[in-house]
């Protein structure tokens, strides 16, 4: 962005008259014209009007007009140059698509998605306004759930783990089924806060806390429990930061609680731990649309048919690679045919452990029903191949 910013600065200098251009500012030109006119007017009230005076007026007017026109030209050129730098920075125009998501059900779904997004991200006043303006109906249950979530997160931010612990005790079964360390970490955060607030050698408050509360977690989190007690040796905080227990001194012990809590809370509601609009939006604008556009232009050049809703064209032109954290389902692409497996063409495992799709298995089978694996010398019987479920 350096180049546009520089050009913008130049444009600003020209318009504000601070640049070293050869023309005075427009205000300056107008002021000097006014000066001449006032002078002439004064003269006229005392002396007779001469042709010279009138000639002076005409001359000044023309000269000043010329100055101003030149200045405007200067400004215009600066504007055009700025525009050119913008053209160079944004080389690709936004593609035009046929209207998307216009069907009634799509519109309603998108409204619902946006409303839930506002609630989920804690923008309650915006959510209210939107629900009013759009007329979308959101379950009151969901709304109150998100309000509760934000109440607890705000408390956590203020270093109050009380509401969070309350929720944990109500949802202990769920947390245990996930083997979640949430409750333990909440107490850990409190313990460390007490510890660091203690004036050595009086560690009574912290140790009391550990004895009464942390002890319950001993069996599940033995190693961490031992670390928490051992780190007392390295107090105060400055020493702790250089010890093997430095991670316990960092603020992430406390700040990570927020996202961990939000994750578990949303999971208990059957919701994803990432905000869906962010996930899809980031993927779409992070390169996916650019990829699709590249392929579209190539196809236009080759004059092939493009349909917005068929499968994205093959030939590896539009394979949008997803980051590991965006992999939610298994994708099996047969190493032989490069086709993705489907219900009708499922992945099959041969006796050697290698997997190919059913169709490929069929094609590779000889008349006697035996198949030679394309990856190793092993031979299988076609009917003994195991259908795989990922």
């Amino acid at each position: 962005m350096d180049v546009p910013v520089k050009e913008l600065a130049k444009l600003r200098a020209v318009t504000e008259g601070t640049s070293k251009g050869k023309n005075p500012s427009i205000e300056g030109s107008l002021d000097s014209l006014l000066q001449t006119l006032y002078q002439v007017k004064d003269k006229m009230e005392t002396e007779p009007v001469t042709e010279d005076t009138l000639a002076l007026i005409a001359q000044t007017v023309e000269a000043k007009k010329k100055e101003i026109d030149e200045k405007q030209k200067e400004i215009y050129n600066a504007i055009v140059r700025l525009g050119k730098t913008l053209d160079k920075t944004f080389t690709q125009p936004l593609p035009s698509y046929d209207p998307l998501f216009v069907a009634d059900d799509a519109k309603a779904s998108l409204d619902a998605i946006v409303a839930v997004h506002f609630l989920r991200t804690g923008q309650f006043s915006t959510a209210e306004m939107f629900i009013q303006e759009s007329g979308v109906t959101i379950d009151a249950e969901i709304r109150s759930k998100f309000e509760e979530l934000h109440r607890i997160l705000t408390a956590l931010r203020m270093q109050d783990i009380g509401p969070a612990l309350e929720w944990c005790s109500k949802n202990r079964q769920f947390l245990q089924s996930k083997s979640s360390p949430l409750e333990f970490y909440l107490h850990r955060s409190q313990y460390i806060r007490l510890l660091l607030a203690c004036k050595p050698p009086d560690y009574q408050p912290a140790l009391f806390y550990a004895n009464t509360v942390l002890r319950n977690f001993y069996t599940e989190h033995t190693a961490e429990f031992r670390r928490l007690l051992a780190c007392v040796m390295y107090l105060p905080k400055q020493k702790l930061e250089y010890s093997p227990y430095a991670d316990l001194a960092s603020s992430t012990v406390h700040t990570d609680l927020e996202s961990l809590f939000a994750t578990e809370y949303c999971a208990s509601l059957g919701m994803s731990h990432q905000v869906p609009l962010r996930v899809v939006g980031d993927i779409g604008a992070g390169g996916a649309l650019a990829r699709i556009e590249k392929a579209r232009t190539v196809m236009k050049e080759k004059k092939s048919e493009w349909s917005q809703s068929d499968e994205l064209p093959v030939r590896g032109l539009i394979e949008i690679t997803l980051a590991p954290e965006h992999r939610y389902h298994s994708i099996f692409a047969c190493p032989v045919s490069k086709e993705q497996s489907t219900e009708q063409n499922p992945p099959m495992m041969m006796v050697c452990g290698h997997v190919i799709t059913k169709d490929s298995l069929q094609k590779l089978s000889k008349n006697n029903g035996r198949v030679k694996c394309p990856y190793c010398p092993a031979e299988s019987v076609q009917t003994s191949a195991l259908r795989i479920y990922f």
Partner: protein
Amino acid sequence: MSTTKVNVDGMLLFEQPFARVPYENYRKVFRASQRNIEKELGSVLSLSNDLQKRSMANEGNVEEAVKAVDGMIGRVENLKRKLSDLQENNGKPTLDVILERLHHLANLETLPTTNCADHSRWADTRLDRWLVDWALRGGRHQTARTLAQERGIETLVDIDLFMDIHRIESALRRHSCAEAIAWCSENKTALRKIKSTLEFELRLQEYIELARARKTQEAITYSRKYLISWQETHLSQIMQASALLAVLPSTNCGQYKRLYDNSRWISLIQAFRLAAYTLNSLSTEPLLNLALYAGLAALKLPACYDHNPNVNCPVCDPNIRVLANEVPYSHHTNSTIVCRLSGKIMDEDNMPMAFPNGYVYSREALEEMAAKNDGKVTCPQSNHTCDFSALKKVFVS
């Protein structure tokens, strides 16, 4: 989280309107200042020339001369005031907005990976910007304003521009062309550049309304004044319209019925919207929709329509799934196997292992299960239990 590098070019694809809208606005301000200069200085020049001519013909007297000079002074002071006004209230603030937006984009270039908190914040702001843009286009103006205010992004969005477009569209909805025609005359050159016939369509519609009200004399005058100038390109349409004077609005005759049809107003609104968006460098579709389309196309798999939704997969969400219906399936030439127990990707370090009935999970997740269950593992989908040792290694290349 991954340490993927930020795809700046890919992201900049979405940001052209962001930078260009205030730039086009500045050009508009410049044109306004130019018009003022030409008008006022033009007057001054002609006053001065007049004065000279009259004195040369010995017609003038002192009083008239002083009045003329006063007039000139008045014009110049007027111009000074108008230009200063434009600069203060329009010019300078617009330049400030351009700078702020360029800086915002510059932040993008300094982000190292998609992993860091700064990227998350930038992406959050971007989503907010998209939501404001989407809400404005959908007529949800209060939501847009509230959102922009709450998130402090008022300079990063174009609320005023959309409100202006909305004002003209509302007028068209009330069957009034005046506002749209005024807009066309302000943007004459630009409309000519994109070869737009919007002005003709608007004039034609006003003519049709005069015909509908049976104000035949007015209609004829109107046509002579405004439609004739388009006769080179639109003669057939003009002639067809002139016949309307003899045809009643209640006609059943095909072509005239269509001319009288009120649905023409809807097409006018659409045509205006398209022209307004194009002239202002706005995209025709909301940016949110484009991002959703591309993102869904990257994620959509047949598995999302299965009966086992993955709670974390956006496409498995029932509402998002409806949107995904319009989007093509994603295409992959390489396998990525995800364990249903742990959500982790299975690879050489964490090999997939198969139950005797074909269900496959990751070694790590199965080992953990076996450790807690005396070496036995149970498939959560088929409920089949067996010993860990009975599992077979699966080789997926």
